[in-house]
């Protein structure tokens, strides 16, 4: 029996369940809110593997670690989730691998935040280190805005919001690219277009097919490898010169926008990848 860890059953999870059923793969959807593990005896049910679709970064890492400690293979692994769920760790992995990525400066206190922002220069983009869907992204156009942002983040009284992850604003052509990597293959890619500087489907961006050029494939595979590999959505942007940059790598990817325009059945390919990993 395969465990599919879930938080909410969204369109992606429904598509995954359908793909599992179509392939005749026995599975149990395990709601992360029901998860209790005795560390001495391990999880109550002995699954043959774990497919992790938990939406919370914190819960996802711990759940993966709990199953891994019991000797089960979790897809994606806790190490990959930890790296991909934290923008600082992702950027460090990308930089370490020598991959093109927007210039990034990090400060770990509000006191140092202004210097980090002004090291990048205006306009700068400030992102939370953990989180997704384009939430709490700030485009900082000048020092006044920077001072206000730092004060507001300080007022949130959260250690996580006192870490400042600052990037150059890349003059992208109103779109970014999402490429789906499964193991050593890029199976599909889409453009995500928006009039807004945040080109995220959760913020209303629309998708259209993107050709898998050799450069895109190579860079996506290298980005996936840099964070530990697995089942990943690599997000990229293009400079006005055409240079491709990797912005992030997502470990529990959403693909509803991609599924609308892709010629392949992403959910089925994802399930196939999980089966391949577990049987390998």
């Amino acid at each position: 029996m395969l465990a599919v860890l879930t938080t909410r059953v969204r369109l992606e999870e429904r598509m995954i369940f359908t793909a599992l059923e179509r392939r005749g793969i026995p599975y149990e959807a395990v709601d992360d809110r029901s998860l209790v593990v005795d560390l001495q005896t391990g999880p109550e049910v002995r699954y043959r593997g774990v497919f992790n679709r938990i939406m919370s970064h914190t819960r996802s890492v711990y759940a993966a670690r709990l199953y891994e400690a019991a000797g089960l293979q979790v897809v994606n692994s806790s190490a990959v989730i930890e790296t991909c769920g934290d923008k600082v760790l992702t950027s460090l992995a990308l930089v370490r691998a020598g991959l093109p990525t927007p210039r990034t400066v990090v400060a770990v206190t509000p006191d140092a935040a202004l210097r980090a922002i002004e090291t990048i220069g205006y306009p700068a983009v400030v992102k939370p280190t953990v989180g997704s869907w384009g939430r709490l992204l700030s485009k900082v156009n000048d020092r006044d805005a920077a001072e206000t942002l730092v004060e507001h983040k300080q007022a949130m009284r959260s250690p996580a919001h006192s870490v400042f992850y600052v990037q150059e604003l890349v003059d992208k052509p109103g779109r970014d690219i999402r490429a789906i990597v499964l193991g050593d293959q890029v199976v599909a890619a889409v453009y995500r277009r928006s009039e807004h500087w945040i080109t995220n489907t959760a913020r209303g961006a629309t998708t259209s097919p993107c050709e898998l050029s050799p450069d895109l494939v190579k860079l996506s595979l290298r980005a996936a490898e840099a964070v530990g590999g697995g089942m990943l959505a690599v997000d990229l942007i293009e400079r006005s010169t055409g240079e491709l940059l990797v912005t992030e790598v997502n470990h529990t990817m959403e693909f509803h926008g991609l599924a609308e325009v892709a010629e392949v059945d992403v959910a089925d390919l994802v399930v196939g990848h999980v089966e391949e990993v577990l049987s390998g």
Partner: protein
Amino acid sequence: MTTATASTCPDCTETVPVPDGLRVTSIVVCPGCKVELEVIALDPTEFALAPEIEEDFGE
């Protein structure tokens, strides 16, 4: 947790259609007040207000 029996929104009492393939933990949107609802039981269908998206939720 606020719940309601059958296919009624626990927030506004609007009747919520139950599409095929719904499972416990599925999320639907109330056609009346647009709040997100989570299926907490089937046969008969019961809805609760869906858990709020937390800060570290994402992909």
